[in-house]
C-alpha cells in the first residue's frame, strides 16, 4: 500500500501546526497541559463535592425497616411511579419501533428484483433500494435524525438517573428501570440509524459450491499421502499411537475414581440397627404414649438426627384397621407404624399425612402410600412401597427398632435387592 500518498490526509494535526517553530510548538503544548491540569482539578473537586453531598444526604436518611420494605415492594413514591410509567411507555415505543422495523425489513425482503450480480467481495453492483423504490430520502432522514436524538436524550437522562440511584443506595426497581432505559436508548439509536439514516442496498452474489472440487480433494489427498510415504516404520508408529490412546484413556478412567467411592455399600443399607431408640428432631425418645391414633411425627435413629437418609415417619392408627402381611404382623406394636420418609420415586421427603384415608403423600409428584397396608403405593408415579421399619416397645415404654428397614430406603437403582 502506498502510505505516503495518504499521509497528509490521515494526519490533519501535522497540517495545522505546519508553520510553527519548535519553540512555539513547545510553548503551546505547555499551555495545553496546564489548562488540562487546571480543568482536571476543578472537575475532580466538582465530582467529589457532589459525591460527598450525596453520601451525607444518604446518611441523614435513616429509614425505619418497615418503610424500606414498603419502598422496596410497592410503587409508592411519585418518582417511582413516574419511572415505571416511563419504562412502560419506553417498552411501548420499543414494540412500536420493532413493528415498524419488521415492516421495513419485510419490504426489503420482498422488494423489487435486484440489479446486477456482483462478486461476494464487491459491492459495486449493489442495488440502491432507496432510489429504486423512490423513497423520500430527505424526509426519512429528518425523521431518523429526530428519533436518534430522542433516543440519545433518553439514554443520557437514564444514565444520570442510574448513577444517581446507585450512589444514593437506590432500590432494585429504579436501578433496573434506569439501566433498561439507558440500554434501550442506545439500542433504539442504533436501530434507527441503521434503518433510517443508512442507504438501503441489496446485494446479490453467487455462492461457492458446498464441497471442494474433485481436483482440490485429490490434491489434498496427495499431500497427505506424500507425508505418509515419508514416515518410516509406519506400523510401529500406528502401534504407538494406539497404545498411547489406550493408556491415556486408562489414566483418565482411573482418575475418575477420585470423584466418587463405590456406591454399593452406601446405597444398599437398611439404616437402622436393632435396638436403636426412635427420637424426635429435638432428640427426645419417643414413648408409646407420644401419639394418638390418627397422628404422625418425624423420627430418627438416635445416632443420626436430621439426616436425609435416616428420616422416618411414625404414624399411629387404630390396631384393628391394620392390613399388614402375615410376616409383618408384629412390626406395629399398639398401632405404631414406621416407614422411611424418603420417597421411592425420586427421593423427596414424604411429609404429608391424610388422617381419614390413612395415606402418606409425597409433595413432589403426589404419590400416595397406604400406611395400613405396608405403605404400598395407591396413586401417583411411585411403584415401590416405602420401606417399613419393624418396631417394638421396650420395658420402659420407649419405641425401638426391631431391625433395619425392610428394603434400602430411597429411589430405586440397578442393584437394589
Amino acid at each position, binding site marked *: 500500500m502506498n*502510505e505516503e500518498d495518504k499521509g497528509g490526509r490521515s494526519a490533519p494535526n501535522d497540517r495545522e501546526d505546519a508553520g510553527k517553530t519548535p519553540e512555539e510548538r513547545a510553548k503551546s503544548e505547555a499551555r495545553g497541559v496546564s489548562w488540562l491540569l487546571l480543568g482536571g482539578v476543578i472537575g475532580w473537586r466538582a465530582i467529589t463535592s457532589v459525591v460527598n453531598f450525596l453520601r451525607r444526604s444518604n446518611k441523614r436518611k435513616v429509614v425505619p425497616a418497615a418503610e424500606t420494605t414498603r419502598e422496596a415492594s410497592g410503587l409508592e413514591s411519585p418518582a417511582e411511579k413516574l419511572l415505571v410509567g416511563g419504562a412502560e411507555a419506553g417498552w411501548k415505543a420499543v414494540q412500536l419501533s420493532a413493528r415498524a422495523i419488521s415492516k421495513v425489513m419485510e419490504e426489503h425482503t420482498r422488494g423489487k428484483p435486484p440489479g446486477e450480480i456482483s462478486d461476494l467481495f464487491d459491492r459495486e453492483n449493489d442495488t440502491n433500494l432507496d432510489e429504486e423504490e423512490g423513497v423520500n430520502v430527505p424526509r426519512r432522514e429528518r425523521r431518523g435524525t429526530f428519533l436518534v436524538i430522542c433516543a440519545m436524550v433518553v439514554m443520557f437522562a437514564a444514565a444520570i438517573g442510574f448513577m444517581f440511584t446507585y450512589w444514593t443506595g437506590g432500590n432494585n426497581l429504579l436501578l433496573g428501570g434506569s439501566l433498561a432505559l439507558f440500554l434501550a436508548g442506545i439500542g433504539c439509536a442504533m*436501530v434507527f440509524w441503521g434503518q433510517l439514516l443508512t442507504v438501503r442496498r441489496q446485494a446479490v452474489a453467487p455462492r461457492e459450491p458446498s464441497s471442494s472440487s474433485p481436483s482440490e480433494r485429490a490434491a489434498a489427498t496427495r499431500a497427505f499421502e506424500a507425508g505418509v510415504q515419508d514416515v518410516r516404520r509406519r506400523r510401529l508408529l500406528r502401534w504407538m499411537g494406539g497404545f498411547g490412546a489406550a493408556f491415556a484413556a486408562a489414566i483418565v478412567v482411573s482418575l475418575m475414581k477420585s470423584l466418587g467411592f463405590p456406591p454399593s455399600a452406601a446405597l444398599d443399607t437398611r439404616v437402622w440397627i436393632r435396638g436403636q431408640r426412635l427420637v424426635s428432631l429435638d432428640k427426645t425418645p419417643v414413648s408409646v404414649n407420644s401419639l394418638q391414633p390418627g397422628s404422625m411425627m418425624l423420627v430418627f435413629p438416635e445416632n443420626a438426627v436430621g439426616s436425609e437418609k435416616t428420616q422416618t415417619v411414625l404414624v399411629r392408627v387404630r390396631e384393628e384397621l391394620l392390613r399388614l402381611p402375615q410376616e409383618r404382623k408384629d412390626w406395629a406394636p399398639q398401632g405404631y407404624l414406621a416407614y422411611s420418609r424418603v420417597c421411592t420415586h425420586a427421593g423427596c421427603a414424604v411429609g404429608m399425612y391424610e388422617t381419614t384415608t390413612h395415606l402418606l403423600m409425597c409433595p413432589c*409428584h403426589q404419590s400416595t402410600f397406604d400406611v395400613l397396608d405396608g405403605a404400598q403405593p395407591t396413586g401417583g408415579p411411585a411403584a415401590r412401597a416405602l420401606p417399613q421399619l419393624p418396631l417394638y416397645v421396650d420395658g420402659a415404654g420407649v419405641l425401638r427398632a426391631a431391625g433395619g428397614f425392610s428394603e434400602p430406603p430411597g429411589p430405586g437403582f440397578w442393584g437394589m435387592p
Partner: protein
Amino acid sequence: MSGFPARFVDSRLRLARITRRALNHIFPDHWSFMLGEVALYSFVILVETGIFLAMFYKDSTVQVIYRGSYHALDGVKMSAAYRSMLHISFDVPAGLLIRQMHHWACDIFIGAIIAHQARIFFTGAYRKPRELNWIVGVTLLLLALANGYFGYSVGGDLLSGAGMRIGYAIMLSVPVIGPWLTFITFGGTVPVTATIPRFYALHIFVVPALISLLIGAHLWMIWWQLHTNYPGPKRTDKLIVGSRLWPSYTLKSLGLFFLLFAVVAMLGGLVQIDPVWVYGPYNPVAILPGAQPDWYLGWVEGAMRLFPGVNFRIGGYLVPELFWPGFFFPVMTFAVLYCWPFIEKLISLDFRPRNVLRWPYQQPFTTALGCAVAAMMVVLEFAGGDDVVALASHARLAAFRELLRVLVFVVPVLTGIVAYLVCVWWRRRRASDDAALRAGNEAVEELTLPQ
C-alpha cells in the same frame, strides 16, 4: 481504514483482504434470523452478569448461622452458599438487579434457542449442507439446559435442593452404570458437601467454555457456508441475496443487542424471579408443596408425573419406574433431534445441497410432525404443574392426570393432522405463485451464472 491503528496492525498481520471480505459479507434480511442472534446475545449477557455474581458467591456447604440484613432469616442455620445468595440479594449494591438479570437472561437464552431451533426446523434450514450445524446446535441446546440446571442447583435453597435430589434419583435409575455414574457425578448420596462445588465448577467454567467453543464453531460454519435465503426473486440455491455486514447489518445487530440487554435489565429490575429467601435454606427433612423445576425442564417433570408406576427386574436387577420418563425419554428425544436431518433425508430422498428455505406449508409432513411434537411438549409442561392446575380448578388430581395421559397422545395427533391439512390447503392456494417464482429464478440462474 487508513487510520494509524489500522495501518499498524495491517503492516504486521496483512488483514486488509480478510477485512474487506468480512465487511462485504452478505446477510439475508428476515426477522427470523434475529432469533439466533438473541440466543447469542443473551449468552453474552449471561457471562457478563455471571462474572459479577461470581465475585460474591461462595460454593460451600459449610453450615453457618445467618446474621445479615434480611431479618426474617436471622439466626437460621444455612449453608455458606445460601448465605452468599442472600448477601448478593440484600447487601451488595445492585446485587439483586444483576442476580435477577442473570436468571432472566438464562430463561431468554433457552427460550431463544428453542425458538431459533423451531425456525430452523420449520423452514428446513438443517438440510444439506447444514446438517453439521444442526448437530452443533442440538449440543448447544443440551449444554444450555444442563447449565441452567447446574445454576439452579448451586443456590442452596430448598427448591434447588429438591431439584438436585430429583436429578440424583434420575441418574441413579439408569440400568447397570447408574449407581457408579451418580456417585462419580454427585460424589456420594445426596446431599453431599462435594456436589455444590462440582456443579459450580461445571456451571461457571466447564459448560460455558464448551458453549463458547461450540458457538464459535456454529458461527464459523454459518460464515463459511453463507446463510440460507427465504424463497423470493433471485434467491436460488446458487445465489445469496441480502444486505452487507457493514454498515446496515452491524447497526441492526448491535441495536438488537442493546435492546435485548434493556429488556433483561427491565425484567431484572421490575419482575421478581427465583426469590430464594422465600424458599428458605435447604433442609433434607423439609417439604415444599407445589415445587416445580424451571420451565425448560417442565416437560421431563410432566413425563415423570404421567408415566405409570411400573417397575420390573431383568435377571433380578431393578429397572426403576423413574428411568423411563426421567432418563430414557429425554435421551431418546435428543437422539431423534440429533438424527433428524438424516431421518428427513430418508423420507424426502433429497440429497442435494439446499440454500433456499422452504416455507412451512411447502413441507407439510415435517411441519405437521414439528407441530405435533410441540403440542406434546405443551401438554407435558401442563402435566408438570398438574397439582397446581388441579388445585386451582378444583378438579381431582387423579382424574385430571388420567385425562392428561390421554391428551398427551391425542392432542399431538390432532394438532399434526390439522397442521398437515392447513399446509396442503395453503400450498394449493399458492401453487401458481410458487411455480412462477421458480420459473423466474431458473431464468435468472441461467442468465447470470457461468454454467
